[in-house]
């Protein structure tokens, strides 16, 4: 995972609440064998509508999603986070998140920042008055800035630290790499190895 400090990019206003993971990515896309290639699956049903905000030219290449309350509720599918990442989002701001979704986000380097309902309204108003405007998310100071507006967001210290350090679960374990190497140096030579392949005919 890359270290996360600040992100500046086009902000996309999603004026909807209760966006569950089935809306973020419908079940038919779960058969795939990759963690990527889900960009076309993101909000697949809503994107049928040409007027849907994601289809508007001004918002192409957006990196920050500003959504209504209760974003990412429902099914635990990690695919929802993969789809958002894959489309290009680094940040989702919302007044409230589904718990599992928030946990999954942290593991995949997606910042899920909690803002107030009032600030969500303010952000939407600013963004919609100048579609395509860039917004800066600063994880160090836990703020989002757009135009003259600066608002705070909430993220727990542990997730923030992991994002700042660029650590996923694997990254965390690899901080113990010296101990893994030391353990490996003491492994007995007769322990099984799959390579090189050996053939013995009994």
């Amino acid at each position: 995972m890359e270290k996360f400090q600040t992100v500046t990019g086009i902000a996309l206003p999603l004026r909807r609440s209760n966006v569950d993971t089935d809306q973020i990515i419908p079940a038919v896309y779960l058969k795939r064998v990759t963690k990527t290639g889900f960009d076309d699956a993101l909000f697949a049903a809503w994107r049928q509508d040409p007027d849907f905000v994601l289809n508007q030219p001004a918002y192409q290449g957006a990196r920050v999603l500003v959504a209504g309350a209760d974003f990412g509720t429902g099914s635990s599918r990690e695919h929802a986070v993969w789809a958002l990442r894959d489309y290009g989002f680094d940040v989702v701001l919302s007044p409230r998140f589904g718990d599992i979704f928030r946990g999954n986000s942290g593991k995949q380097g997606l910042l899920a920042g909690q803002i107030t309902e009032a600030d969500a309204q303010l952000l939407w108003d600013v963004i919609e008055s100048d579609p395509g405007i860039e917004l800066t998310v600063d994880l160090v100071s836990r703020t989002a800035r757009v135009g003259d507006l600066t608002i705070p967001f909430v993220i727990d210290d542990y997730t923030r630290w992991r994002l700042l350090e660029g650590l996923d679960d694997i990254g965390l374990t690899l901080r113990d790499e010296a101990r893994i190497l030391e353990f490996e140096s003491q492994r007995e030579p007769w322990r099984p190895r799959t390579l090189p392949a050996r053939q013995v005919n009994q």
Partner: protein
Amino acid sequence: MTDATLTGTRPRTLAEKVWDKHLVAKGEDGTPDLIYIDLHLVHEVTSPQAFDGLRLAGRPVRRPDLTIATEDHNTPTLAIDRPIADPTSRTQIETLRRNCEEFGIRLHSLGDIEQGIVHVVGPQLGLTQPGITVVCGDSHTSTHGAFGAMALGIGTSEVEHVMATQTLPLQPFKTMAITVDGALRPGVTAKDVILAVIAKIGTGGGQGYVLEYRGSAIRDLSMEGRMTICNMSIEAGARAGMVAPDATTYAYLKGRAHAPSGQDWDDAVAYWDTLPTDAGAVFDAEVVLDADTLEPFVTWGTNPGQGVSLSGAVPNPADIGDSNERAAAERALEYMDLTSGTPMKEIRVDTVFLGSCTNSRVEDLRAAAEIVKGHTLADGVRMLVVPGSARVRIEAEAEGLDKIFTDFGAEWRFAGCSMCLGMNPDQLAPGERCASTSNRNFEGRQGKGGRTHLVSPLVAAATAIRGTLSSPWDLIQDGDH
């Protein structure tokens, strides 16, 4: 003498010894221990997103030399030289092939002699050894515990974690001794033992525990029998099942492709000899079973704990004290279309499935072949015989077992998971009833609407002859065997 008496340390169980030996970092304040993984087994269903995660993060597989892959869940058991018809299955297999190529993982593909069910392949190559840690993105990884290994089934994100770090953060476990003393009577097998164990402790009875199977009846079992027992530990909800290594284990391993040899063999045996549970070690729980009284055991319901002796009858839910279990039994009887009080032996089947990682090794096939030899398959019954690996299939053919099965009227198939879970075309039709040597009788497991009775290979064979759930004892009574 145990190593506890030698070193003066606290007496430990087999499971604790293996765990301690693999501790990379001890967890503090409730954080998990970091455990080193000796062997990672991979198959096509649970690996694709793990490989993709590595690719996204730009990480390699840390130890390709401790990793091995095979194709099993989706592979067809007929016409294996033709492209796989189902697109999802085909994609999963093709993805595994690409991933193994890219990450340098040894893969045994369809058509290769070592291809087959992942839990048959590890032991047959001699990779599964006493005192190692084994993981696989598959719950029946517990099979490998038969060698005195700590063998754990894991999820896809853990698969990625092991690929990247060769370790896993794991919470410590509790230990349960399951002691089976006495001797099994002829016709009673490892499968009957484990079905009886699960019926006794329940499908949740092993939760949080590593089970250790002990006692004279376990010591008398072959490695194949021990694998059958450990395989189904997961059906009791356990994290793993283990049997201490002994002369039987060593004899099975010696000379296998990846078993140690020469001085390495002697060094390994010296270590393996220290593994059995110390005298005086304390288990968190104990269960005792009397081997002498065990009979062939079969399931009547839709979880592996809903079982009864074959000489018994379909139970009456009203007799079940626990209200949740009573309700589950009522639902199960409805799904299975069975009436309380019906003798199990009057239940007629449409299909017999001999296969799966529980019972598809050459010994299982041999035992079943011995029973069906010279008989004819019952009218209206189909029987699928699916060897656990291509090597098992070849070995069986060298002994003429294929001929015995096909003369009998059974279908002799190529290796794979097959009707154990029906991801390939081998499925039950709705309403069909099957005597199956596999490990799960869940609703729809072997095909939508299919009804499964879990049985031993001997019961499967006798059932195929008589058309109703039967044991080899019934054949003797029929006077024709």
